[in-house]
């Protein structure tokens, strides 16, 4: 609280003035302690530490078999349904593609209102007209739209309060992420790594949408890191930020994963490390100033985006308490960093890979590029991707949705940049006769054409201290599902097959499953209303809510 008064008096005063009008007072203080209020789900990843771990434990390994479906919300969209809802005092707020917001009764699924945002026809989404969710502060929801606008919406009326243009959609900028609210700012990043954008993270005043700071992920002339780009390649250097960051209030640092350099597959056009692509950036929450960075994949020729959720863990490391960051990267390595300064503490491959032989003492990969035409492990979609991982403080394990035994052959082509056109410099293909090279990235056919020949999905439980895989839950098809763990040692996961499954977080044993009839391409979440714990997940084109049978 002391911290709040010192840093944020004006914002707090502003919120206090609003209190009489508010139904659910989502103060910044509540966001700081979101984990302590597990009846609500207040941010995309459940808390600023982004562990996707809930203290709720009404549903347990022994009664999970009594889960039953309580309601379904059918989205008015045939796009992939990638949203993680927020829940505030029994009211659920979710997004449906492309950029609509729905408020409904979290107990029954009955709808209060729908805000339909009309997306500009200028949009150039690379990989689906999707949206991942919302942020909330006070009585206001924050929506990042596909055409790169930031919209504030009255959480009770479902009406827009303000709408600001963040970037130019026709130039390939888009937004699909759930914003992050810190203090009196709403922070977003932009997608567009396949269109030669120049990525950035930007913060806006929650009250009126005026831009407070903007930090480019590709440094311009005169800035440190600019020398890692050749010629003017930095101008179209990519480094998109299309997933919600995390926040450490004590350090006042926000953490953001950045995506691929552009063009994706032709590094000859951008010789150098291409900072700060494929990195995690630690940005001061008040100023956006870069405190430190760690680059996972320098001069990336594979599109190994570091667009994952930064998972913050306070734990012991070699006998001393340490502020850690855990990161299962698309490049197939699992990393542990010191989040105060970005120091590399440990790194281990969590799937089979051949693009690097290992990591050096500073965590830099030792590249082993495969001969032209030979398969590279992991393939384009990576060892994992944007799928939310989970960390359970009870088990001390890090859980990740992984793609195993999966490769692509990367074909490189020189390409000239043109604004608003795809700028990828080649294409990936599959080494397997008949296998798709981007397996159902946009439209997932109900037939599993993927099969054992081209790889498969799994949930892997990693001991962060040793890199040891404590257990593995293999699937036949691949998985794009996020993960959720609870204080009763349950782990919830989906997958492309459309099953929603509860596993024992300690052993990986399957405890319960149900078929939802469409791929789960979103993170499950949990909340409680009137003393009843619910677990909700989007699958296919619907959102399903489960609770124990009466």
């Amino acid at each position, binding site marked *: 609280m002391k911290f709040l008064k010192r840093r944020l008096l004006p914002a707090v005063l502003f919120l206090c003035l609003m209190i009489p009008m508010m139904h659910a007072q989502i103060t910044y203080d509540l966001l700081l302690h979101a984990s302590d209020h597990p009846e609500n789900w207040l941010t995309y990843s459940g808390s600023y530490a982004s562990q996707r771990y809930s203290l709720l434990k009404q549903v347990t390994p022994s009664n999970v078999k009594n889960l039953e479906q309580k309601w379904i919300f059918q989205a008015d969209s045939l796009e992939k349904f990638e949203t993680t809802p927020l829940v505030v005092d029994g009211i659920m707020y979710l997004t449906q593609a492309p950029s609509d917001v729905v408020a409904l009764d979290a107990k029954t699924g009955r709808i209060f209102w729908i805000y339909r945002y009309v997306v500009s026809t200028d949009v*150039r989404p*690379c*990989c*689906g007209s999707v949206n991942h969710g919302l942020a909330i502060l006070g009585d206001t929801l924050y929506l990042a739209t596909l055409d790169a606008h930031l919209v504030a919406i009255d959480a009770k009326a479902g009406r827009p309060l303000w709408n600001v243009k963040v970037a130019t959609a026709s130039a390939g900028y888009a937004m699909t992420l759930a914003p992050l609210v810190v203090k009196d700012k709403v922070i977003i990043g932009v997608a567009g790594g*396949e269109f030669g954008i120049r990525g950035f993270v930007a913060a806006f005043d929650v009250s009126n949408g005026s831009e407070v700071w903007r930090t480019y992920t590709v440094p311009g002339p005169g800035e440190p890191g600019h020398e890692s780009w050749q010629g003017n390649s930095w101008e179209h250097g990519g480094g998109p930020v299309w997933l919600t960051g995390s926040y450490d209030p004590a350090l006042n640092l926000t953490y953001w994963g950045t995506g691929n350099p552009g063009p994706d597959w032709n590094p000859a056009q951008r010789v150098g490390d291409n900072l700060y692509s494929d990195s995690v950036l630690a940005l001061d929450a008040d100023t956006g100033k870069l405190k430190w960075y760690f680059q996972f994949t320098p001069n990336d020729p594979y599109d190994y985006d570091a667009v994952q959720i930064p998972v913050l863990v306070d734990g012991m490391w070699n006998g001393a308490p340490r502020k850690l960051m855990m990161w299962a990267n698309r490049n197939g390595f699992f990393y542990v960093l010191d989040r105060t300064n970005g120091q590399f503490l440990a790194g281990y491959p969590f799937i*089979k890979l051949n693009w690097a032989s290992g990591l050096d003492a500073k965590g830099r990969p030792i590249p082993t590029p495969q001969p032209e*035409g*030979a*398969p590279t492990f992991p393939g384009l979609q990576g060892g994992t991707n944007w799928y939310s991982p989970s960390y359970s403080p009870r088990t001390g394990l890090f859980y990740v949705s992984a793609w195993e*035994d999966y*490769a692509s*052959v990367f074909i490189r*082509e020189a*390409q000239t940049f*043109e604004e608003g*056109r*795809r700028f*990828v*410099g*080649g*294409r990936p*293909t*599959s*080494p*397997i*006769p*008949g*296998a*798709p*090279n*981007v*397996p*159902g*990235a*946009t*439209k997932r056919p*109900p*037939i*599993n*054409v993927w*099969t*054992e*020949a*081209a790889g498969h999905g799994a949930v892997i439980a990693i001991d962060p201290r040793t890199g040891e895989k404590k257990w593995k839950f*293999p*699937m*036949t*098809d691949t998985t794009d599902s996020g993960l959720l763990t609870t204080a009763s040692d349950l782990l919830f996961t989906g*997958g492309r*097959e459309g*099953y929603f499954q509860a596993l024992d977080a300690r052993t990986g044993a399957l405890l319960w*499953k149900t078929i939802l009839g469409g791929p789960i391409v979103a993170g499950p979440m949990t909340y409680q209303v009137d003393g009843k714990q619910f677990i909700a997940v989007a699958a296919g084109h619907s959102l399903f809510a489960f609770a124990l049978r009466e």
Partner: protein
Amino acid sequence: MRLHIALIAAFIFVSAIPTVGAQYPQAEVEVGFNLYNTNCITCHGSNGDSVSGVSFRSGQFRRVSTDAELNRLIQTGVPGTAMPPGRFGTADLAGLVAYVRSMRDFDTKPARGDAARGRTLAEGKGGCLGCHRINGKGSRVAPDLSDIGAVRSPDAIERTMADSSSTMLPINRSIRAVTREGKVITGRRLNEDTYSVQIIDSEERLMSLLKSDLKEYTVLKTSPMPSFKNTLTPMELDDVVTYLRTLKGAR
């Protein structure tokens, strides 16, 4: 590890094929075929030559030469013409490019045989219809071939006739299952997930098996289709391939 070796082996095989037709994965070509039939066929026609000055089959494009350019043009359209911008995802674009390019490959290779003789062989001595179905005739045990000429290159068809295990789509693999009661079930895989597998068995029955009910479950990597390298003459093989290339029935 076994899978790894299989992957490498598969790759070596593919890389050894010096044909343009092998450049695009089959699944992509099929994705593109379906999209083409929905989005492109009205103007460009089933042979890709209905727009004057453009013929996909003869590789004649007015504005593009590389795959990347074709990919971009599909997205941007051609302002001032009837070609609209197309909104497709990465995989769909790759599929469309693969199919449009493969249309060229399919036809640039001259047919060496006689389609009518090939049909007689397919329906007679070759015994194709004993397992495959073509335009409503024949068995459903193996994949339907009614549109094989639209989705496979002549090279792929030729290779299949000689060594079908090398070209068989993994989803089409045969499975062998033994139930807890000891009953043996074999069939062609139609779909599979972690807990179950869907097949069409040798009696053309659609079956869905729960893996938890099975004592044994094996996916066979060898195709049950015999090689025709020695049972048909080279000329007969050409005839059959030429006939199969004419099969372009919509799905």
